[in-house]
């Protein structure tokens, strides 16, 4: 009898222990993997992304975290993965975050070439991934792997390539014609210089397609490429100067764009309008080219030094101040979208009420949340049904040199509903000729 009681007691304890082991414990924290380039050529942008993610997580956690189905509020725990600005580094970081740290969701990814290299791992493990930096449309358009868990929260090269080309056609072309006293049908001579990667080629494709599709009176007089990380652009710029362009569109990272414009103006004597892609709207970019940036254009959606008038200006100001208070510098655009990426991840997990990957993915598909700090189409963040891309409201800035601080500062010149000043051709501007 004594032994029977002991046996049953042991059995009950064992059963209780087994039940305890198999029952899923409620999540104590939500693990968010942030993939950023903390080292290597893109580290300037990567650090900004990682630090912005931390600002967002701190704000969310200060309010108690994310509410789950069981009524609990769970804080976010960010884990960073350094892609080292290389494809191999990206693969290593993604694998560690997914299989080692077992994150619930991924946010970040900068270079399109790097990000697309580890998408295979994301697809294999079916981890929801909010991409906030890589801008090539291939990120969600590619068909060689399953990208259904990847959501694109930054404008693609298609979007901003088309936007900038339209600006050239509607604003720069008439201004040049006016300066020359030329007929309205004079073809605009545009040169393109692009990084020879998915990102740069994406811009090249977008510009070419926009011109063809909309039958724009723009002639591409020179298309030059350079390898990622290049710092000497004098020869391709010599080729561009020989083609006599009216303007030069640059698809480059900030560490390439600033020396490129400096070398063009200083060394080559290319006194023209330079149009840069949005990722160049970065404090270091303004610092690097000094007065040589005067008159140039940046397509943007978030700037360290300006904001469109309205409610978003306050939200952006709050983010910039929080970031500046914590890190002593201003955040950049990729930081802004990564900051929002953390809010998107939190909202999706909150909507799903669980960290189950499939449920979070569905919550991202169904997402419809108010814009955070960047202007979105319709004022809300949602992802398109076809390629899971969010849609941004963009603007164009023209830079003016500020003698006091020794750097250029941007003013919004387009579209009309956001512009602060009119676009002007600088006095030193030399139009091209056939």
């Amino acid at each position, binding site marked *: 009898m004594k032994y029977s009681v002991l046996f049953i007691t042991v059995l009950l304890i064992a059963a209780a222990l087994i039940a305890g082991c198999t029952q899923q414990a409620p999540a104590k924290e939500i693990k968010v993997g942030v993939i950023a380039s903390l080292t290597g*050529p893109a580290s*300037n942008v990567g650090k900004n992304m990682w630090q912005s993610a931390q600002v967002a997580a701190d704000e969310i956690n200060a309010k108690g975290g994310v509410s789950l189905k069981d009524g609990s509020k769970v804080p976010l725990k960010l884990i960073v993965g350094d892609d080292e600005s290389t494809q191999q580094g990206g693969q290593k970081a993604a694998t560690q975050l997914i299989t080692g740290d077992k994150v619930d969701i991924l946010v970040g990814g900068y270079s399109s070439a790097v990000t697309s290299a580890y998408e295979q791992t994301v697809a294999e493990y079916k981890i929801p991934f909010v991409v906030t930096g890589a801008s090539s449309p291939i990120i969600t358009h590619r068909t060689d792997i399953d990208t259904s868990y990847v959501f694109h929260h930054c404008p693609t090269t298609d979007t901003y390539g088309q936007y900038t080309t339209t600006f050239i056609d509607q604003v720069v072309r008439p201004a040049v014609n006016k300066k020359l006293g030329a007929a309205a049908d004079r073809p605009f001579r545009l040169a393109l210089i692009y990084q020879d990667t998915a990102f740069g080629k994406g811009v090249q494709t977008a510009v070419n397609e926009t011109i063809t599709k909309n039958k724009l009176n723009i002639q591409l007089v020179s298309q030059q490429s350079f390898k990622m990380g290049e710092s000497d652009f004098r020869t391709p710029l010599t080729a561009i100067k020989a083609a006599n362009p009216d303007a030069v569109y640059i698809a480059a990272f900030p560490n390439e764009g600033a020396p490129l414009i400096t070398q063009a103006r200083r060394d080559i004597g290319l006194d023209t309008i330079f149009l840069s892609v949005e990722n160049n709207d970065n404090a270091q970019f303004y610092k690097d080219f000094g007065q040589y940036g005067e008159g140039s254009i940046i397509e943007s959606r978030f700037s360290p030094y300006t904001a469109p008038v309205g409610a978003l200006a306050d939200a952006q100001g709050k983010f910039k101040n929080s970031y500046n208070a914590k890190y002593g510098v201003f955040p950049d655009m990729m930081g802004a979208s990564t900051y929002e990426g953390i809010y998107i991840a939190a909202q999706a997990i909150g909507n799903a009420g669980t960290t189950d990957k499939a449920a979070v993915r569905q919550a991202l598909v169904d997402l419809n949340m108010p814009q955070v700090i960047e202007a979105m189409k319709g004022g809300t963040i949602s992802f398109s049904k076809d390629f899971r891309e969010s849609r941004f409201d963009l603007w164009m800035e023209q830079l003016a040199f500020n003698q006091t601080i020794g750097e250029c500062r941007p003013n919004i010149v387009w579209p009309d509903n956001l512009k602060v000043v009119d676009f002007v051709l600088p006095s030193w501007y030399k139009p091209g000729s056939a």
Partner: protein
Amino acid sequence: MVDFGILLQIVFWGVYAGCIYILLATGLNLIFGVMKIVNFAHGEFLMIGAYITATIFFITGINPYAIILLSMLALIAIGAVVERLCFRPILGTGKLNEIFLSIGLIYIIQNGAAIIWGDKWQSIKSPYQEISVPVGPLNIPIDYIIIMVVTTAILCGLYLFLKRTRTGREMRATSQNRKGAMLVGINVERIDILSFGIGCAIAAAAGTLWVVSGQVFNPYMGSIPAIKAFAIIILGGLGSIPGAIIGGLLYGIAENGAAYYFGGIWKDAISFIILIIVLVIRPTGLFGESGD
């Protein structure tokens, strides 16, 4: 038909790029010639030279061309320490040890620089950036002319040092026959330290000129130029300083020509295409002697 002015401009940019390559390759060749070691971390000394120049410039505002001397002196000291602590213990133990040691040094120096100076891209502005001079059909910023003059001066100085001084002659003797040099009483370990230090100092000069020309720099900037410097010394002939000069100029001009005619992506590839062609035709390189 390419316009003569454009062709001249491309050649000019090629010569400018060649100046940086020549300095880097000459330093590497001096070290290889004397010690016969393969140092893949040589580009990191260019990077340190760049940062020393920028740091002194940011703090004092001294003309960056004047800082070149300070930068070179600092790198002589740093090079001597690296030789003494890292390369001397493994000298003669096999090429694999040298290769892995220098690869390890790349990571240590890069990360050390990132800790000290941060890993953001930086740039400085030359005091002469607004000045250009007309040269034939070209309007050349004076900085590039100064860079070419400084490179020539450094090479002439090195030539005189090697030919006219006792230490220089000892260095050449060690380079030609290490055992023979020891037998006639030359302190080859002292020569090793000196040649490593001078090689690093010349790399530092390349770093200073890189920075002054307005190119951006960060802790990872040295790797690609170092690979090219290796290709140049193989092309010119291992241990041959005239070979490094001709090879550097050839690479600079070929790279810029390829970028103009075939696009920027061919810029690096053309260097190695030339290297393969030269090695197939003349395996010892342009100025190398058999047995190197």
